[in-house]
């Protein structure tokens, strides 16, 4: 049996020191302070307002940029939902030709950095690209079209971001089990109505979490929109900083962006109301899939194949072509170092980030206070900030620590040198701040699935909290934690601005190499590091999807 509506816990009560362990609140607050400090630095930028820059931005572009941003957000939200949810439904609950392959493969676009996708697509499809050149050869010059408008940006962003929705919706559908749909059928609903009225509402938290991730990345993106020269709110942030040399106004603009995201998240929470989502954790068995037959089955296969081809095979194919065209010459003795750095930073950061996300989720669940809600929101909103802005916020807060460290060093008569900025620890914490939101979504949705009555039952049977954590929470959370670790790992590998600004000397990664080449316009040469990221990212994607399918 599965309940979708909250039941206040009645009967059994935990002893309060177990229900709300004090160390948990302490740890969560410290954590929130750590990842919140950079945001605070940015929010505190309002001390001094440079009116001339603001007036200029308002008069010349702010309206257009906000309009563009809203259109982009609405477009990406629509398209990632339209792509991600049905695909997740098909692979999680149906049986059709090629399902096993698509199940895993549809996640793979996650490993393609958005800027790489943008560059490949514009290169292929814009006026000078091979597609239009061929078309002009056949039909004459009147077939010209621009592949740099709104539609193109929305399409490209959605193709790399839909896996967030796909991944979270898929595990939600898998976790629902067969019973709710059978109940719906007994009550006279067909498969479509069952999907719309039962499965979809039950998967709502997961779908929302996935969409929120996709949208926050859209808002933070600068690399991909820059390829289209599509101006968004982020463009104004960079214009203030790089163009007007005015980091302060840039930070003020960034804090407005944060406010926008917080309001969006708040509205969604209100819309969800007081509904809670728990499940009994029985997994769907493969034998209980809806078996599609005939043309319907082939249509679904074809659709999956099409999405996979456009979102993954095309960009990877293009990278391969560039690789054989000469980009392989980028290989040198230090290349393995780049891969090793990327892997170790990604793995360590993933473990730290997931641990932090788990602590926060557990804290919010145990306390359920307003404070807990605010703490969590503060700690996870950093994902929507443009990477370099957040990176500077992080750098400034660590620099503040360095200033204190310098006093101590001086007092002890040691050589004064930065400890934090330019150290591995700072970089890892930067990753945690940036990607906590990505890890938090899957961790929290899987935590939400544990009905309070299960740990309570264990407690009545005499189990103490550590044992409950080990024997109930961990096993039930394992798929969610692994998903979170995967997301964090892949995101860290693709991360560019914070890595660039905060990496210790000599700690170059694949993303750094990509930056070096692409910022000089050498996109083709970046095929080797680009492909390496994709290949390295593919392994964990496949492992995780396979594991969560059982």
């Amino acid at each position, binding site marked *: 049996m599965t309940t979708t509506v909250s039941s206040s816990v009645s009967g059994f009560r935990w002893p309060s020191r177990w229900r709300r362990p004090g160390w948990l609140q302490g740890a969560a607050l410290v954590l929130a302070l750590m990842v919140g400090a950079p945001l605070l630095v940015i929010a505190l930028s309002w001390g001094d307002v440079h009116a001339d820059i603001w007036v200029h931005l308002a008069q010349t572009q702010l309206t257009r940029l906000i309009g563009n941003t809203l259109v982009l957000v609405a477009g990406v939200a629509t398209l990632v939902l339209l792509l991600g949810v049905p695909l997740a439904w098909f692979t999680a609950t149906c049986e059709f030709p090629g399902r096993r392959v698509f199940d895993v493969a549809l996640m793979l676009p996650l490993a393609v950095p958005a800027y790489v996708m943008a560059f490949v697509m514009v290169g292929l499809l814009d006026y000078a690209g091979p597609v239009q050149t061929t078309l002009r050869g056949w039909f004459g010059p009147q077939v010209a079209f621009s592949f740099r408008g709104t539609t193109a940006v929305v399409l490209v962003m959605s193709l790399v971001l839909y896996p967030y929705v796909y991944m979270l919706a898929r595990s939600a559908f898998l976790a629902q089990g067969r019973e709710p749909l059978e109940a719906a059928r007994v009550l006279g609903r067909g498969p479509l109505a069952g999907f719309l009225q039962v499965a979809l509402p039950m998967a709502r938290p997961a779908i929302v979490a996935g969409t929120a991730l996709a949208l926050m990345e859209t808002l933070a993106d600068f690399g991909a929109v820059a390829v289209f020269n599509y101006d968004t709110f982020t463009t104004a942030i960079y214009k203030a900083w790089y163009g007007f040399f005015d*980091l302060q106004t840039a930070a003020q603009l960034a804090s407005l962006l944060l406010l926008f995201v917080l309001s969006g998240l708040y509205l969604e929470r209100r819309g969800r109301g007081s509904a809670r989502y728990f499940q009994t954790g029985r997994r769907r068995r493969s034998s209980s899939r809806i078996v599609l037959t005939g043309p319907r089955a082939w249509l679904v296969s074809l659709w999956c194949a099409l999405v996979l081809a456009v979102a993954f095979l095309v960009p990877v194919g293009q990278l391969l072509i560039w690789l054989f065209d000469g980009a392989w010459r980028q290989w040198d003795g230090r290349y393995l170092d780049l891969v090793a750095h990327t892997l170790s930073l990604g793995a360590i950061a993933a473990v730290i980030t997931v641990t932090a996300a788990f602590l926060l989720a557990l804290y919010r669940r145990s306390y359920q206070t307003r404070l807990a809600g605010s703490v969590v929101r503060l700690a996870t909103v950093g994902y929507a900030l443009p990477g370099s802005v957040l990176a500077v916020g992080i750098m400034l807060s660590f620099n503040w620590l360095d200033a204190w460290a310098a006093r101590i060093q001086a007092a002890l008569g040691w050589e004064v040198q930065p400890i934090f900025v330019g150290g591995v620890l700072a970089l890892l914490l930067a990753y945690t701040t940036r990607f906590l939101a990505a890890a938090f979504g899957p961790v929290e949705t899987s935590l939400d699935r544990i009905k309070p009555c299960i740990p309570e039952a264990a407690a009545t049977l005499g189990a103490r909290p550590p044992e409950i954590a080990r024997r109930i929470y961990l096993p039930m959370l394992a798929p969610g934690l692994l998903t979170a670790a995967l997301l964090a790992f892949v995101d860290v590998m693709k991360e560019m601005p914070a890595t660039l600004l905060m990496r210790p000397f000599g700690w170059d990664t694949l993303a750094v190499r990509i930056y070096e080449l692409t910022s000089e316009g050498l996109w083709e040469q970046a095929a080797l590091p680009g492909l390496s990221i994709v290949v390295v990212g593919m392994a964990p994607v496949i492992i995780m999807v396979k594991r969560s399918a059982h």
Partner: protein
Amino acid sequence: MLKRASIGLMSLALAVWITGCSEQESPAPEGSKGEATAPAADAKPATANGEIVVYSSRKEHLVKPLFDRFTEETGIELSYITDSDGPLLARLEAEGERTPADLLITVDAGNLWQAAKQGLLQPVESQVLEDNVPAQFQDPENRWFGLSVRARTIVYSTERVKPETLSTYENLSTGDWEGRLCLRTSKKVYNQSLVATLIERHGAERTQQIVEGWVDNLATDVFPNDTSLMEAIVAGQCDVGIVNTYYFGRLQKDNPHIPLALFWPNQQTSGVHVNISGAGVTAHAKHPKLALQLLEWLSEGEAQAMFAGLNMEYPVNPEVAVDPLVKTWGEFKADDLNVAVAGKRQVEAIKLMDRAGYR
């Protein structure tokens, strides 16, 4: 279930431990309490042994060969990080006196000017630099010096444009070029510098007319980079554009018969717009003498040839010969304004381009 989960966690921890071990600097975190025991910031900053630290927005593949050669010749070790100018300046400013950086290298004069204005660079006295770097390519107060010259010029389709119909940057705003012009985005500092010098020559009003004329003549949306702009000219989307010469050089190296050519504009008037890639010693350098030694070395013969040649730019030192391919593009008269103008008027130029609708 439990077993599988713990195996998963253990293998993850193991993976972390293994990869962690491959890096000497990072002790492995223990289990999932990673953040408490994560590698402490004891990764030694490479500054400890009297080595030079460079912050560079010039990319690794364009500077590393030079650094390697410098170390070979002098035995002085170098460490560096590369990033964009904005973040590097922000880091320098935040680190203040504690900065490990000795030398800042950028790819345009505007950011050097800005760094100097923020007090991040220190003036240096050097006869070598005065001799090697022409006055227009260095800070009047000696806080930064150009190391290579980058010319931003007109490129045209050899199939559809007769070079005698071209004359100046300003002329590209006239009705002759309606629907035939391609430009790169105004967000790129190279275009901001070009417009800054136009403002210096013509004043804001006339410059705005010129920029508005360019925008009216655009054949399509502006491009994100010079290379895609030139590809559009080849494909026939437009006939002329404004690009940095080395981007053209790269295309020409790949395809010697590419139907494009460079045109040197404004030869009767102000000359071709030039910018620099350059460097300055940081205000709080820990090794200012070594940094100056590196800077001077970079301005001399062999290093100059390499510095410019690696990217088909022009050496700033007039004694040094240009790359053979670059030489085939011919000689030109360059704008003789001090490149500091690019920094001084950058904000004004961006505002003007915004008002003119040049995105």
